C-alpha cells in the first residue's frame, strides 16, 4: 500500500472516531424530551450563564494577552523564557488540579481576607470567571504571540521613522495587521472557556441555577441518570463549537484554526 494511502487512512480514522461519538448520542435521542429540555428554565439559565461567563473571561484574557503576547514576541527581557514556559501550564496541568490550586489560593490568609472584605469568590459566579480566565489565559497569550510573531518588525520600525510613537505604531500598524489572528484567537479562547469544566467544577461547585454552566450541567445530568438531558447539553456544546469554527473560517478567512 502506498504511503499516501496509509496517511489518508489515519486522517479518516480521526474523523470516524469523533463522528461515531457524536452519532452514538442519537441512540438515546428523543425529540419530545429534547424540545422540553432545551426550553426548560434550567437549561436556558445554563446557556445564558455559559455564554456570559465565557464572554467576560475571554475579554479579560484577551485584554491581558495582547500586551503580554506583544512583549513576548518583540522584546528580549529577563524572565521572558520562563513566562513562555508558564503559558503551557494550563495545558499540562489537569483543569481539576488548576481549580484546586485556585481553591487553595483563596483559602490562604490573603485569599480569605479578599473574600471577607472585597467579595465572595468560591462557589459564586466570580469563581466561574476566575476558573475560565486562568484556564484560557495561557492559550490566548500563546495564540496572540504567534500572530504577532508573523508580522515583520520592519513595519513598526518604518512607522517610527514616519513620526509614530511605539504605542501609535502598534495601534496603527501591528494591531490592524494582526486583526484576523486576534479574531481567531478570541474565538478559540471563547470556545475553550465555553467548554471549561474541571476548574469550574472544583471552585464554583455544581449548584443548579447558580453555577451550573453547560459542561457542569452535562456532568450533573449524567450523575442523575438523565441521559436525555445530558445529550441536549452535549449537542449545544458540539453545535456551538462547530458553528464557531465554520463561521470563523468562512467569515474571517482563517484556515489554520
Amino acid at each position, binding site marked *: 500500500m502506498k504511503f499516501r494511502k496509509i496517511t489518508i487512512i489515519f486522517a479518516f480514522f480521526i474523523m470516524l472516531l469523533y463522528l461515531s461519538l457524536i452519532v452514538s448520542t442519537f441512540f438515546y435521542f428523543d425529540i419530545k424530551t429534547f424540545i422540553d429540555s432545551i426550553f426548560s428554565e434550567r437549561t436556558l439559565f445554563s446557556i445564558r450563564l455559559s455564554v456570559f461567563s465565557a464572554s467576560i473571561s475571554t475579554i479579560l484574557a484577551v485584554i491581558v494577552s495582547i500586551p503580554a503576547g506583544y512583549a513576548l514576541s518583540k522584546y528580549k527581557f529577563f524572565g521572558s523564557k520562563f513566562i513562555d514556559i508558564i503559558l503551557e501550564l494550563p495545558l499540562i496541568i489537569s483543569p481539576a488540579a488548576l481549580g484546586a490550586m485556585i481553591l487553595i489560593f483563596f483559602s490562604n490568609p490573603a485569599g480569605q481576607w479578599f473574600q471577607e472584605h472585597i467579595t465572595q469568590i468560591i462557589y459564586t459566579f466570580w469563581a466561574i470567571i476566575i476558573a475560565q480566565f486562568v484556564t484560557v489565559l495561557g492559550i490566548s497569550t500563546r495564540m496572540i504571540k504567534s500572530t504577532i510573531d508573523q508580522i515583520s518588525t*520592519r513595519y513598526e*520600525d518604518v512607522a*517610527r*521613522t*514616519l*513620526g*509614530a510613537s511605539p504605542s501609535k505604531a502598534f495601534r*496603527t500598524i501591528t494591531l490592524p495587521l494582526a486583526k484576523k489572528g486576534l479574531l481567531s484567537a478570541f474565538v478559540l479562547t471563547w470556545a475553550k472557556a465555553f467548554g471549561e469544566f474541571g476548574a469550574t467544577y472544583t471552585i464554583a461547585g455544581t449548584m443548579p441555577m447558580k453555577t451550573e454552566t453547560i459542561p457542569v450541567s452535562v456532568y450533573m445530568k449524567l450523575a442523575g441518570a438523565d441521559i436525555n438531558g445530558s445529550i441536549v447539553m452535549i449537542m449545544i456544546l458540539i453545535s456551538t463549537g462547530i458553528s464557531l469554527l465554520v463561521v470563523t473560517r468562512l467569515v474571517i478567512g482563517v484556515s489554520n484554526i
Partner: protein
Amino acid sequence: MLQVKNINVSVDNFKLKKISFNIEDKATHVIIGPTGSGKTILLETIIGFRKINNGEIIINGKDIKNTPIEKRDIAYVPQDLALFPHLSVKDNIYYSYKINKNKKYNKELPAKLIEATGIKHLLNRKIEFLSGGEKQRVALVRALTSESKFLILDEPFSAINETTKNELRFLLKKIQNEFNLTILSVTHDLDEAFFLADSISIISDGKLLQTDKKKELYYYPTSVEVAQFLGINNIFDATISNRTESETTVFCKDLNSNLLIVNSGRNLKSENNRVKFGIRKSEIMILRDDLLNPKQSNVFNGVIELIIEKVSFCEIVVVPINSEKSILIEIPTYAFNKLKLFVSKSIKFTLKAESIFLLKNTD
C-alpha cells in the same frame, strides 16, 4: 550635515568598531561592503533601531544618540520597503500626516513628490498590486512626506530589474536636487555606489577601511583590502628605491624590474620602504611593435596565458618574462580583434606610471 564620530555597536557577537564619517548637506554618501560587513547595522544605529556603546551621531550640530526614533527626523526606505499592506498607496503616503495631526505639514509636498515620481495613477491601489519599481517609488514618496531632508536607503534597488534600476537611480538624483536632500545609502553594488555617491565608505567585518570622495577612493585605495573590494587584481610587493617630489621608483621582485610611479600627492609612509602597489586591469596597455616609443616607461615583455572573452571587452592573463606572477589586462573587444591576440603569443605591455598607486604593506 551628519557626523558619525567613533561609534561602537555590539549586536550579539558582531561588533562595529570606531566608525567615523561625515556627510555634507545635499550630498550623497554610500556605504559599501560585502554581505555581513555591518552596513545595515550601521544604518539601523543612525536611525535609532540599535543602541550605541559609545560615540556620537550628530545631525545639524545636535547629538541624536539618545533621541527617540520618531524625533530624529530621518526618512528611511528599508531594503524590503515595508509598505504597510493593509493601507492603500495613498494611505501609505499620508501615514505621517494622519498620525501627527498637530504637526503643521507643507500640504503641497506630497502632491509635488507624487508628481515627480509619476505615481498619481497608483494612489487608490492596494500595495499587493504594485510592481517592484512602483513599490520603490511609493516607499520613497512615503519616506519623504515626513518632510525630513535626510534620507537613508538600505540596498534601495536590490530587487529590481536593470532597466527599472537605472530609471530609479536617475529619479533619485532628480528628487535629491529638487528637494535638497542629504542621502546616506548602503549597497554592495559598486556601479550603483559610484553612480549615486559624492563620497564613499568601505566597511568590512565591522571596520571602516576607507572613507573618501568618490574619485579619490577610485584612484587611490589605501589598502589591499579596499583595492581588492574595488575589483583590482593586479597587486604586487615592491621596495621603494628612490623617491622625489613628483615620482617614486620601486623595485618589484615579482616582475623582476624597476617601475616608475607618478606620485599621487598622497605620500604613503613606509618605515622600511616595503610597500605594495596596484594597477587596474584597464590601465595596462598592450603595445604595438610598430608604434613603440623608446621613452615609454614600465614596459614589459610577456606571454599570453589565457583569454577570457566578454560582451564588450576581453580579459587577458599575461605572464611577464622571468616572472611567475601573472598580470590581468582588460582591452575593448575591437582592440582585441585588431591586435589579433591568441594564447601563447608574445606581447609588450606597459603599466601607466600615472595609474599605479601605492598601498600599505600589512603583511
